[in-house]
């Protein structure tokens, strides 16, 4: 995940962790008279899970156990968090302390969200209410409600539904009752534009600071999207948002959708589940909850790198010289362009 803050400011404003880019672009007469300068501050947020040879989660690692490489260049970790524990700021001397955001240092800002934005996970549930889900609509609704109830207290959750269009049934909140009330208000729709809706959900998620995931609950068919699954996947990859998919369809029934689900989840650090029955759906949700509770999140400001295209991110575990552990994460990202 990458947080990009853009703002039009004058050159006198101090630059925080990013480069200054002079806009040569809009050479309108007007713009020439009043040149605009843009400051881009990129912080990369990278979430991953580590499992051993038997597929068990590896917990308890410290930031010193982990090396992050971007295009082979080692990065200096800025913050480190495990599961839903509060993140730690990694200081220059290698020691850590609880994270302090500018807002938390300035209580007068009154922004309660920002002080705990990096604690817990922001979970966006995207529920397919199209005609394709008509039969399993209520059971799916029950399974999602159970999942929401079982989320860690530190997590926030939003519930979106879609058919041809997206509906924000419940905005991101820590209040489970809000989320479930939104879910229970869902209305069965018509066509399915899964990838359009997923893109819009990712755009919303990208605006939220901290760690976030999108969980798609759908049976796969899409007869209304204008964007390709892989373009949507690229957005998730760039923004560092893992996509989990719970498909209510059997793998063999819709090979194309199944393949796409595997690709978009795998490439973003998420997982795909094929759960036709209610029980399997509950199990899938349980697995996702476990994943969230056992993942690591690090942030860093990328070291100088001339590559403006796709940057590969590698996670190395110092305590695993034999490389027996398996790291599941997005493979990299494309830095956003400034103009």
């Amino acid at each position, binding site marked *: 995940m990458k947080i990009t803050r853009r703002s039009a400011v004058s050159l006198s404003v101090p630059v925080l962790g990013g480069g200054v880019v002079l806009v040569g672009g*809009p050479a309108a007469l007007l713009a020439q008279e009043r040149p605009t300068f843009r400051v881009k501050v990129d912080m990369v947020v990278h979430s991953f899970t580590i499992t051993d040879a038997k597929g068990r989660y590896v917990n308890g690692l410290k930031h010193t156990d982990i090396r992050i490489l971007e295009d082979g260049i080692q990065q200096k970790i800025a913050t480190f968090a495990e599961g839903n524990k509060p993140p730690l700021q990694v200081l220059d001397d290698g020691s850590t302390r609880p994270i302090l955001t500018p807002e938390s240092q300035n209580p007068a800002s009154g922004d309660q969200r920002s002080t705990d934005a990096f604690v817990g996970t922001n979970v966006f549930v995207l529920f397919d209410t199209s005609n394709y889900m008509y039969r399993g609509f*209520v059971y799916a609704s029950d399974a999602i409600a*159970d999942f929401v109830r079982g989320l860690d207290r530190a997590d926030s959750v939003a519930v979106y539904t879609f058919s041809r*269009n997206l509906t924000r049934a419940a905005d991101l909140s820590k209040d489970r009752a809000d989320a479930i009330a939104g879910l229970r208000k869902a209305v*069965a729709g018509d066509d399915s534009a899964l990838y359009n809706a997923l893109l819009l959900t990712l*755009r919303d998620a990208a605006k939220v600071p901290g760690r976030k995931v999108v969980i798609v609950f759908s049976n796969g068919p899409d007869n209304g999207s*204008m964007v390709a699954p892989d373009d949507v996947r690229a957005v998730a990859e760039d923004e560092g948002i893992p996509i989990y998919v719970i498909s209510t369809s059997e793998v063999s029934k819709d090979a194309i959708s199944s393949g796409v689900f595997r690709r978009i989840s795998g490439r973003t650090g998420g997982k795909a589940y094929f759960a036709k029955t209610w029980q399997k759906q509950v199990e899938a949700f349980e697995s996702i909850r476990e994943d969230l509770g056992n993942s690591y999140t690090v942030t860093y400001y990328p070291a100088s790198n001339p590559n403006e295209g796709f940057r590969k991110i590698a996670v190395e575990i110092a305590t695993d010289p034999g490389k027996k552990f398996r790291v599941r994460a997005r493979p990299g990202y494309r830095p956003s362009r400034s103009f």
Partner: protein
Amino acid sequence: MKPRFLLVCFACLSAMAAVDLRQVQTLESKGAVAEARALLRSGATSGSPDDLAAYAEFLDRRRDPEARPAYDALLKALPASSPRRATTERRIKMLELAGRSGPSAPARQSEWPTVNIPGPLRSFNRMAALSPDLPPEDLFGALARNVVTNGYQAASSNEALEQTEYLKLVVRYLSQARELEKLAGPSGMIRIEQCESTQTADLLKVLGYRMRGGCGAEVVLETVNATRAFLTVDSGFPLSPLEQALRTNRPFELNYAPTKVPVLYGPEYWQSARDKGAAETSFVDFFLSDPALCRLYLGLSKLDPETADELKKGIPVARLKAFSHILDFFGGMFQIRGGKAIVPGAPRSIPGWTDLAGASPDNGVQFIEKLINRDDGWLASYFDSAARIHGREQEFLTDSARMKRYYTAIRGRITSPGPARPVFRANTDMLLLATRLRLEPSGVPHIPGNIDIWKNLFVNHPHGKYDGKLTKTAANWKEPDDLLEALFALSRKAVENEPLKIFMALSDLNRRRSKPLEPATVDRLAREYRSLGSQYSIFSEAPDLKDKTILAFLDSATAITKIGDQGVRADHAGMMQSLVGLWQIFCRQGLISPGDADATLDQILQGFSKPRTSRELFDAGRAGVTALFKATKTSDGADPQERMLDLLSGEAQITDADAHTQVVQDMIRIFEAQHLISLKTLWDLADNLEGAAKGGKINVPLVTKLSTRIQEIQPARIALSGAEKNAMAFGYWTEKHIDNQRKVNFRAVFEKLGNDPEKLRDARGLLAQFLRDTLVGYNYIHYAPPGAQILITNPLFVRSHDFIGAQGSVQTWKSTEVFGTGWPSSAGGRLVGSLANVPYALAEAEQNFLIPTREQALIWGDLVPQMIVSAKVPRFWQVTPSQLHYAALLQRLGESAVAFAAVDAQARPAVVEIISRQAPPARARRIETLLAASDVRSALDLLLPSEAYLLGARVLATDLVVPGPEAAEIKRLAAADPAKHNYVAISQAFGTPKPTLANSYRPTLMDLRTFPTLMGYSSRILAESWESSTLYYAALADELDVPPGQLNVNVPIWTQKTVEAIFATHLEDWPALLRSLRIVGDNLRTTARKSAGQRAAVQ
């Protein structure tokens, strides 16, 4: 007091003010409204009546809620004997009635008898797909429409109709609601006292849920009966609050009393149509079971009350039911007044109508009965078309002899199926022909070219016979009537009416031209319509375009079509079309003067008169851009990329710098997302190659820069398997174009070239394909819809534009279409065809990324793309603050006229008469009734902003004097700058593009009634005839002191908000659009006034 005196009084109040009103006017004309307000406010503190009046009138003109207290202050300051008192009191009264101040009017009560619908209305509306905003008296009408259009389908086994899933769910819901109603008992309240109770069990059983876990904090509701549970969730039963109550063991209460809903004429009237022996059921069940009855309900609900009453009295319901489809589609324009039918073109046309219907309009009921009984709706549809227009065109079409002739042609020998039988009205062509008919000053219809051209078209028919009989008769055509008769005759055919489309396209072209097209040009355009007709709207952008240039365009298009290699053809077509597209944009924005338009297009086309090598193609593209720059007075040293973006965003005033920068930056964002190559890079490299050919050196950093950019082009998404590709039967894949670009390695190429001058020059041919995409990209980004999710997300969207199309079809010059929606494995959607309709296609592709803010609402397909086009095509940089105020004042004058009609019964008929030129009889009559009851607010709710605007304009042209400051100010502005303040100038400033109705993207106002949905167009023409949004936004901007230039940013945003807030029940539900528009306006007003208040508090 005579009305004329009132006007004088308002004018003199302004003239006598001590404040320097000229200074105020100067400030206003510059857009310095806040300063003008401050000056007047300061003057008003003097307490002088003149200054108080000037201030009050200013606020009144600006729709400021403070106008009312300002008038009160004026009233206090006026001596008891002052004649101004009466004027001021009347204005205050009008403001009160119009709802701009004073207490809210009580909610209207329907006079119709009611029936009970089980449960809350909200739940029923959800299940029946009805907008929650519907007034109760409209509910059964909307339900009837849904039953007619979505409730039944043909059974597979026989001819009977069976319920659709939609209707089955409504019926099931009613059953569940009745069970819940029983649980609620006589009190109408569902009550659960505690978790552990039989009430809980009974309720959950009906809802289809059960408790998992015992009562207490862990209890969870889970599905036990999926069918019931689906109804529970889908109808919006408050399941979460119930669950919460069970968890906390607190009482749960829900009002589940039945809802009383008015039924037009009462349920007994409709039940009298019940078949003998049919089982007794509730009204709702009976209603849902009879689609024909629903259609009659729908039809009668569109009639004005007096007409409907007469028909109801004169014709038994069972007989009316047989004509319900005709009443539904064409009854809305029927009128019976005092027992007589009002016919279009009366009194001159009365003998004609009598002859055609077989009854005199003097007996209204008999006339209408005959009209609808005549021929399955053909005569009624002609009546409807003629009634929708007015003026000379109506007189022409209702001339008795001509009417008979045209009607006979439309009717044909076999009348069934009539035009009201299909789901949409099938008289589209007739309605369009009648509406767009153009008469010469002599009263003769305008015929593009001459009659012989049309005669030949029908006789020799380049693409096969249009109609065997017409082919025979065409040889004898002598006059325009002969051609129109043939066009009417073709209007009844279900197949595409190509001659009519040609006729309308060429008529529209001539309408805008300073000199009509030469016959030879008309002949060529008519014959090539099938292959090139989609391009003709381009020629409407410049009124002085020479015939020679139009023919050159056709020649170039034909030459390109003949290119065998698809890739080369696509490059030629893409380059030429994108340059012409830019020419269109610059002409429309006034950046190319009308005098330069023809020469510029001619220069562009010269490069495409024959197939070119890739080097020549690049040069042709560059020459085209140079011609565009020259015509737009671009200085020689300007950076081509930056200049192009400047031009695309439009020429802004210095005061609009921020808005302009925002528009440009949005464009750059998309340009970057598409990884297009800037003109500067392309030009620099081409120049460098030329320099190298003359002995210079290759600019390695420049080549590296370009190569890096090319490397950013991602491979095309090709998740489709070979078999799937073959299944789609595509002969040409845009991936080839993308792959070719990715393969270009400039460094390697240049190394191989060595110092061979000719090879170095030829190498710039490699840039042609990139230039094509850059130029196509400029067209895309100019029209990019708000949000532009596709253009931001799919980096290959521009490059994927398919100028070739599917195998077997030549799409190169066809209208732009969206292709590839909803394939999970595809490369996403793309646009196919020419660039002629790119604005609409982009909007169509983007529409479903808008997010409805209303629960259950969906984006209104067909209407929304046109709304987006209307927001994106016009630019407002050249609109002056005075024009903004002028347009707003005319709307306000229209609204004041409505208020005046409530306080002055003598003025009412004239006002209603003007309104009825736009509003159908039922709505005009409803407004009249409301005004008689002094319910101005409700009357204004029924008036569209475009109607208010036209009402204001027409009131000015009559003797009617409406008290208030608007008329005097409108006249003052018109006198001060007549060129800016007139109908045509405002039409250009705040009109909307009408590619279907007017064959042009040039914004205009057309003074039309709002169209219904039509066969072949769905809501698209309705959307094009909707001119209210931009006018409303203009008035809003004027009210909120938003500078006109800022509209370039705000109108797309406001449109997005409006679209997202629409909750429409059906495809003609424009009142839902109006409601949404007003919701957005009210929210913006609230926000603006809140921030103004905060600013004032800080100061």
